């Protein structure tokens, strides 16, 4: 355990006591709050919010959906006594929910709680309120996500579309959402939507800063940006996976000033890293001669496309579908899990440079001959497998894994909010924290 015994000791995952209560049936996903010690778990027709301090239930969102809640996302940038979550459900609707700490809410809200809540225990059960229902998708919603500023929400589902909604409310407290785009390029269920974090992604040339990645049953990944006319356009199609792409995660904290890379994982049992080919003259790129491109159909805007290349395939660790992976902002490590109940942790070689990435890209593109006539792209050398933990939820499938800060009593006080753990969510209804040692 002593940290001075490093550096050769292999990484180990030690199970901590699961969050209480056990949710009893399949749970899909657990999302940490961006700043507070809270974790939101989607399961059955509800979301249970757990406290990361007590590792037990804090509150729950119920009676908003007629079918399972598949996905949830925290609204960022709210004051600490206000919480807001979006839920995406198989009932084809998305809900925006709010929770207010009664002690700190403004007096108007206190009054309202007093008048409608009655007894205290009643009020506690009614902490979460469904404020707005976003309706439009025609079948199951598979994923929902707030953009980093909270200005946008993306939803996606089996109807092959991605919807982008914009907050047009007059203030933070005024929930009014408007559809600003319906993206129909995918040819199969859209499984995941994820917004690029706001590091290093400031408006590049012709686009605003918001960037959305979507993954699909059609085996592709797409990148969407908003152009200067306010149109959301697909700027890249990432092809390479040979099965449903279950999800994607952006590099949360790039070490250099490069644009964040994208991690994707698939039913083909691989995890890939994609890198944007950045033009040196990007910022100075001349505006198009037609002036702002206004009136030019999307199909003619070829020059606006971005070039994304697969620059790494992580070492093989899984024997069945990979359902989830997570990229740490602190350590840069990646963890993955899936149908085989294995948790795998990977680390990127610190020496990985732009040159080796280009070489890797060339190799993956088939620009250079494969060694030994191997027909598969070789796993890239710059990522190594640190550990695999089988039977993470006993024999059950694991649907989700995420890095998460520790705030529990088992963590030294000075490390609370700093030390990272993994949290996995499984078909057994357990939400399980893992200490990294």
């Amino acid at each position, binding site marked *: 355990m002593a940290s001075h015994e490093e550096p050769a000791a292999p990484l180990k995952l030690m199970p901590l006591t699961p969050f209480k209560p056990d949710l009893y049936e*399949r749970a899909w996903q657990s999302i940490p709050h961006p700043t507070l010690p809270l974790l939101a778990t989607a399961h059955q027709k509800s979301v249970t919010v757990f406290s990361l301090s007590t590792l037990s239930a804090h509150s729950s969102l119920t009676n908003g959906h007629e079918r399972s809640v598949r996905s949830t996302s925290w609204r960022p940038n709210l004051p600490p006594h206000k919480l807001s979550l979006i839920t995406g459900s198989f009932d084809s609707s998305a809900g925006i929910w709010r929770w207010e700490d009664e002690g700190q809410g403004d007096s108007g809200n206190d009054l309202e709680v007093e008048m409608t809540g009655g007894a205290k225990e009643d009020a506690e059960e009614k902490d979460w309120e469904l404020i707005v229902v976003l309706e439009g998708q025609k079948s199951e919603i598979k994923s929902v996500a707030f953009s980093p500023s909270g200005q946008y929400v993306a939803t996606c589902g*089996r109807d092959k579309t991605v919807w982008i909604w914009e907050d047009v409310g007059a203030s933070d407290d005024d929930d009014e959402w408007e559809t600003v785009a319906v993206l129909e390029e995918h040819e199969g269920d859209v499984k995941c939507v994820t917004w690029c974090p706001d590091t290093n992604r400031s408006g590049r040339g012709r686009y605003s800063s918001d960037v959305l990645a979507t993954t699909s049953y059609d085996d592709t990944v797409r990148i969407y940006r908003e152009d200067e006319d306010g149109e959301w356009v697909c700027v890249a199609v990432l092809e390479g996976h040979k099965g449903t792409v279950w999800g994607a995660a952006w590099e949360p904290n790039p070490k250099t000033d490069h644009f964040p890379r994208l991690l994707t994982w698939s039913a083909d049992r691989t995890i890939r890293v994609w890198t944007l080919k950045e033009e040196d003259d990007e910022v100075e790129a001349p505006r198009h001669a037609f002036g702002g491109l206004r009136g030019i159909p999307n199909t003619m805007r070829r020059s606006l496309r971005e070039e994304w290349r697969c620059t790494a395939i992580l070492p093989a660790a899984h*024997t069945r579908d990979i359902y989830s992976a997570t990229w740490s902002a602190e350590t840069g490590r990646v963890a993955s899990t899936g149908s085989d109940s294995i948790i795998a942790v990977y680390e990127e070689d610190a020496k990985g440079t732009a040159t080796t990435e280009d070489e890797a890209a060339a190799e993956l593109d088939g620009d250079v001959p494969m060694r030994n006539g191997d027909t598969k792209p070789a796993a890239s050398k710059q990522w190594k497998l640190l550990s695999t933990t089988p039977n993470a939820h*006993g024999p059950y499938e694991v649907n989700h894994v995420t890095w998460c800060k520790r705030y529990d009593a088992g963590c030294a006080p000075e490390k609370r909010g700093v030390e990272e753990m993994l949290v996995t969510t499984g078909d057994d209804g357990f939400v399980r924290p893992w200490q990294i040692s």
Partner: protein
Amino acid sequence: MENANPTILSVSELPTRQNKKKAATAPPGKDAESDLDIVLRRPEYLSAPFCEVPWASDDTDSDDGFTIEPIDEQEIYDLISTISDPEHPLSLGQLAVVNLPDIHITPSPSAPADPNTLTQVLVKITPTITHCSLATVIGLGIRVRLEQALPPNYRVDVMIKEGTHSQDDQVNKQLADKERVAAALENATLKGVLDKMLETCV
């Protein structure tokens, strides 16, 4: 009806485990609670039907509650051959949609059993005609039946037997998609069809 005149096997022709002790009995299929069971996978290790399987008398390490007679291909066949076809009043075994040689268990049931070792059950189905649009529903019924009946370390893969169906890749991909299967079970119409198919499982 897509195929009004399928080839039918008589019950006596179907493969059985002759002279063997009674096969595991399936959960009673008709009460309201078992309907729920189909939708909700319960995390109990001792879920039906395995709690009814008699322990081997010479068992020395049964205290973990897991040590049961290994599940073989015949037992898988028994679990799914009695499922009713959604459009014929016949079972999938009688219609030869499921066939014993097309059931594969990996690792082999003769290998030592560890309750945490993942075991793959691959069932290749033969739809009655090549463009049978109900192939997905039949496959779904088989997947649901096996996931309901088998212990949680079993991973069920249902595929269309090569060359027997015109859109087998599409059907296989749907049947392998956990999210789609989960959503399908929350669709009342589809759930009704599946319940009816599974009613005849005993």
